[in-house]
């Protein structure tokens, strides 16, 4: 197992290398740079002073070629230095550390809700496959699949925050200050993500369950006189959750892009908003830091998924 984890971690190196290089050059290719942003280029009342901007560039070291800048950043990463914001001087690692818990909480709550919806839906649709109930739920899942996350977020905000006033529409309350308020402030954003997420999980579980229900050992369980509910939960669910676990892992990665949108709509100060702002203001180092974190998260998720396979099925353990 340890050997296996080490192998996974070694994978991390080329992945991080490739992804960070790509994103570095990509952000660099965008028109304008952070010096423009500092000098206020693009705002209405700006007076463009080329000499001043050039001065700022020189101060920040932006006048060096992009390759040089990338490798000097990379050298820093190996010594644990992720650089700092050009504009505010805040350490990249610090900026991310402050915002990471917000995004993590959002993703975990979203995934939790998604699984909470998907498991019963998957079980019911598989059990009633081809029947009316299955068709109804399937139609609903497709409707959610087709809806973009920002539409769902806006509808939720309108319904539960503006009209019913059950949850706050925007804002973030730290858990340490007010646990209940914190959960309330995360409810709508995570629900918005969960709603686009659960249909996929439910479909995946349904398909695997239908296959499992054909197996001889399910017939045998029935012949033992066990109840259908017991058979579904205790005989069929576990061998049917492989694809589910895999997809949950993949989707956790994909949800990060959803988080960007949802964090903006609900004004949550997470990594998603930080990423958007950093790209806008061409804060390359900040973008890089976030991407490294995402790559690490990706590998960890993969690792956890692989470990779960072994937990689920003794045959994988051998």
């Amino acid at each position, binding site marked *: 197992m340890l050997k296996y984890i080490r192998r996974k971690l070694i994978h991390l190196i080329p992945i991080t290398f490739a992804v960070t290089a790509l994103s570095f050059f990509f952000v660099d290719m965008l028109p304008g740079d952070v010096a423009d942003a500092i000098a206020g280029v693009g705002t209405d009342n700006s007076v463009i002073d080329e000499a001043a901007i050039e001065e700022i560039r020189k101060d920040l070291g932006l006048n060096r070629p992009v390759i040089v800048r990338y490798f000097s950043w990379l050298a820093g990463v190996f010594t644990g230095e992720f650089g700092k914001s050009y504009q505010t001087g805040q350490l990249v690692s610090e900026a991310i550390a402050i915002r990471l818990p917000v995004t993590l909480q959002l993703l975990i709550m979203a995934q939790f809700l998604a699984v909470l919806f998907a498991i019963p839906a998957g079980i019911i649709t598989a059990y009633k496959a081809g029947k009316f109930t299955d068709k109804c739920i399937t139609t609903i899942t497709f409707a959610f699949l087709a809806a973009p996350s920002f539409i769902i977020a806006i509808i939720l905000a309108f319904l539960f925050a503006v009209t019913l006033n059950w949850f706050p529409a925007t804002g973030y309350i730290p858990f340490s200050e007010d646990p209940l308020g914190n959960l309330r402030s995360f409810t709508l954003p995570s629900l918005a993500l969960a709603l686009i997420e659960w249909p996929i999980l439910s479909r995946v579980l349904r398909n695997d369950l239908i296959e499992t229900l*054909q197996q*001889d050992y399910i*017939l*045998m369980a029935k*012949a033992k006189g*066990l109840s259908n509910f017991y058979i579904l939960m205790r*005989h069929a669910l576990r*061998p049917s959750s492989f694809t589910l676990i895999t997809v949950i892992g993949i989707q956790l990665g994909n949800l990060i892009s959803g988080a960007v949108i949802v964090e903006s709509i609900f004004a949550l100060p997470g990594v998603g908003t930080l990423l958007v702002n950093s790209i806008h203001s061409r804060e390359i180092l900040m973008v890089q830091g976030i991407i490294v974190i995402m790559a690490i998260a990706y590998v960890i998720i993969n690792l956890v998924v692989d470990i779960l396979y072994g937990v689920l099925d003794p045959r994988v353990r051998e």
Partner: protein
Amino acid sequence: MAGLLLEVVSLVTSLATKSGKLNAVDEVSFKIDRGQSFGIVGESGSGKSVLSRTIIRVHAENRIVSTKGEIIFEGRNLLSLPEKEMRKIRGREIAMVFQNPMSSLNPVKKIGEQIVEVLIQKLGLSRTDSRYRAIELMNSMGIAESEKQLSNYPMNLSGGMRQRIAIAIAMAPEPKLLIADEPTTALDVTIQGQILNLLQEQTNKFNTAIILISHNLGVISRYTDRVAVMYSGQFVEESATAELMKNPMMPYTSALMRSVPDLTSPPHTKLRAIDGMPPSLLETPQGCRFQERCQGVRDKCFSEMPEIILNGGDHRYRCWYPLEN
């Protein structure tokens, strides 16, 4: 302790398949006494499995089944019982052993759990008691180191051992009827005899009646009191086993007998298979269903279906021109 246990009357089981509706079991009637061992023999596709699954009302999930007739078990018609009542009978009064122990045990559940769940749910034992009982059961099935096996998964066991576990599960509640659908076909030849002996020993011990399904008349002749020959969804001959082996009346039965590998012949001796194929159940011919393969076929066989009739004693067969022995 004789007495009637099960009476099947004019049972018809229809399956909805992609190519249409077919009667996999067609007008089948028979009786089984308490403690009796009843064999059903026939070629692949003759409907043996569908018949046995109709009795216990457990069918593969995806096909729609409709049934006609009666299955009277201890005075109650199983076909008209509500599902909830039927579930009480399953695994308690009527148990089943499946053909392939490689696929009939849940691969991701420990052996112990698969035995214990029946003891808890069907016999109401406590968790601790059921553990001891499971060990006892496994011991009496000839499973070595049974306590250790409790926490094993099926993959850790050989086919023969798995089938012993399946028999332990089936026999745990001391059922009145055990259905064993080709319980040894998937096993190594050297193990087959052991498993059949175990089944015989266990069912005798609890006066459990057994329906033993097999392709092999040799097996049937050794382990059953009565036997029915099934062909194309119908019973074509039924009698006491010794009588049938001595005096087969229906040509199909004697053809089957000739195709049996002698129990003394080395394994994998080539079978003298019966020429031709049984008719498709989607379009069964008018007249006798064995007509195309029968060597004694005559005109009447093509136009009229022979009824299954009693020929003195309790030897029944379905043939216009029975063999003269």
